[in-house]
């Protein structure tokens, strides 16, 4: 006698099998929907591949779980806090646009045109990053364009595993160049206090405010550290609530998805270099703790720089990578007209990661 869940499972399984054989026996259908079906099927069912060579048992941990862990960390790190600070209307609409434009349009169309065998789960991570990097009141089409560009760019480079630089950051750079006005405005001040029913139904009143780093650059104003840490200072949608980001990232480091060497070296070098710079230049550069907790540094150091594909593979070289990121960030922040330099620093070091890795291998193996 079968229980109800079991018979439902059997039914789903049988129908998926029928769909699979239907799709794979017709080349034209397979051309259009093969990869889409495989992606959908991969979310519901395990693979049927068995180990053909030694070792014959494998660990129960695959790329789906790896990317899933990043997704979970990002949801707790920025989605939930920004739903509180900016209202669910702002956050969920941007997420929906980002996912639809990135995963469901750009990735699916690419898979059909380029005849990819599967749609990568890494697209979800990229699309979850895009709204986080843009101002809270950035227009929706900008979010969609950013997501589509990120996915397109990643696929052109050869998909997950081959991208030279972080696709989400690259797309942000592209938007910064093309629409500079839209990316310097729209920094909504987060709401504080207990949300009432009115704001829940109709959204939160939009009051824009300069980001802490711009405020410092313009009139030397220092935002209180507690406000920076809790997320009540303005900034991009995902970077404000730093305490949640730190906690989520610590969990990622604990389960070994993020490598601890990069955040430690990145944040450590930012702190040490800014102590050094304040000693040399005094009040013209921001104090060390303010540097640590402002801008996208926490999001960048814990989530963007640790993207394993774009950093070096060698573990010792990761220290160099992190220190380089920290130095470039500080140079851009303190000695240029740019208020924030995390994005440029990570993108630059992503490219430099290749020679660093090359050198590290050379040094280690004396080749």
């Amino acid at each position, binding site marked *: 006698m079968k229980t109800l869940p079991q018979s439902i499972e059997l039914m789903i399984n049988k129908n998926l099998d029928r769909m699979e054989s239907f799709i794979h026996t017709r080349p034209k259908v397979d051309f259009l929907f093969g990869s889409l079906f495989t992606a959908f099927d991969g979310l519901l069912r395990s693979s049927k591949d068995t180990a053909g060579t030694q070792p014959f048992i494998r660990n129960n941990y695959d790329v*789906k779980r790896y990317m899933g862990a990043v997704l979970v960390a990002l949801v707790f790190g920025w989605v939930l806090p920004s739903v509180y600070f900016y209202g669910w209307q702002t956050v969920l609409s941007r997420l929906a646009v980002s996912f639809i434009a990135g995963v469901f349009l750009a990735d699916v169309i690419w898979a059909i045109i380029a005849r990819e065998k599967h749609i990568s789960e890494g697209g979800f991570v990229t699309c979850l990053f895009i709204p986080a990097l843009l101002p809270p009141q950035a227009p929706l089409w900008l979010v969609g364009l950013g997501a589509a560009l990120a996915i397109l760019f990643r696929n052109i480079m050869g998909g997950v595993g081959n991208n030279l630089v972080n696709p989400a950051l690259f797309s942000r750079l592209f938007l910064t160049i093309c629409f500079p006005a839209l990316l310097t405005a729209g920094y909504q001040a987060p709401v504080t206090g207990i949300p009432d029913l009115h704001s829940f139904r109709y959204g939160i009143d939009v009051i824009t405010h300069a980001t802490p780093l711009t405020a410092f650059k313009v009139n030397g104003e220092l935002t209180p550290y507690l406000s920076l840490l809790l997320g009540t200072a303005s900034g991009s949608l995902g970077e404000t609530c730093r305490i949640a980001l730190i906690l989520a990232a610590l969990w990622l480091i604990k389960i*070994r998805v993020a490598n601890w060497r990069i955040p430690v070296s990145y944040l450590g070098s930012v702190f040490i270099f800014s102590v050094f710079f304040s000693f040399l230049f005094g009040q013209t550069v921001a104090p060390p703790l303010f540097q640590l907790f402002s801008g996208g540094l926490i999001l960048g150091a814990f989530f963007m720089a640790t993207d394993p594909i774009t950093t070096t593979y060698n573990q010792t070289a990761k220290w160099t990578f992190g220190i380089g990121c920290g130095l470039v960030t500080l140079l851009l922040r303190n000695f240029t007209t740019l208020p924030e330099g995390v994005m440029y620093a990570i993108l630059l070091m992503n490219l430099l990661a290749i020679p660093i890795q090359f050198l590290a291998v050379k040094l280690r193996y004396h080749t």
Partner: protein
Amino acid sequence: MLRRKEKMGFHGGFNLLDTYPLKFCNIIEEIQSDRTPEKFEFHFPDQKIRHVIVNLCPTEPWALPNWVVLGHKTTAFLDKLYEMKTRYFPEASVSIAINKRETEFVAKAIGYANAADWIKIYTLDPKYPQDDPVMFAKVILGLDINFGQNITTQGIFIFDAQTLLAIYDTCILKNTVNSRLITLSGSGLKENEIVRVRLGTSIDTLLQHRTQEAIKYNIFVNGPLRGREITDISQKIDWSVNNIVVLKDQDSKVIFPMLKSDELAFTTNILGEPRQCVYCNFCDNICPVELEPALYYHSYIRGEKHKARLYHLEKCIECGLCSFICPSKLELLRINKECKALDRKT
């Protein structure tokens, strides 16, 4: 049921005993065979034996556990070892590697070693592949030996408890030893058991009525990680067979795998879809000899197999942990072996 604690790989090895806890029945069944059994033979070589390591630290859950062989007679076992030492290798250093967690054996052995200065006790973490000859030589003797090198030429002998007792029986007591203990385990069997088999029995007779009906299964001798797959089941069992693992061949899709990890675990399914390398650093974290397997993979897919040799490939002990842990399900061990084979040819 999610009883199993899924442990991630930790630095330099993997705790298989916790990941796949196999329970064995206490009753040891004897398997009858009508063939005439083969005899166990062992001759000490003429050359000097410098080091003897007794392996009481099996790191694979399907290996023969210590309690089967030793029982509560650890002291008697060590007395026998002393008798053999005085007779055959009086000048050799004798080390015993014991699983840190088996507190009963550890306590008895340390109590014994306090009174005897000829023996050294090493308590080790039961992480795979700690019981590999290369790892033993490194951890216990501090010697660097290469994988695949014949360690007996260097005067190093590594015995497990059962072999040592068999040598004692044949060489000192002059008895004939013609049977040995073997563990049978895996998802393809009805239950895990320990059996005593005559040497020369075929695997066929051994597995009769023990495998589950109506499933496909694969048979592995000496474990699915380092052992070999058996296709000819009329093969005979000799002394080198320590255990037989029969794994279910899960080649159909299972719906909602995240809820059914116990159904998929310990089968030959690769538990995921093959993907490109994402540089996650799992393989070099887990590698017991501190190599970077992804470098070999990238040399290999670029068609530069010869380059892989530059990255200390000869140190690889072929434990298979890199393939085991890889979230992209890459065949890293096969690639390593292919690159090594190239080395031998040129």
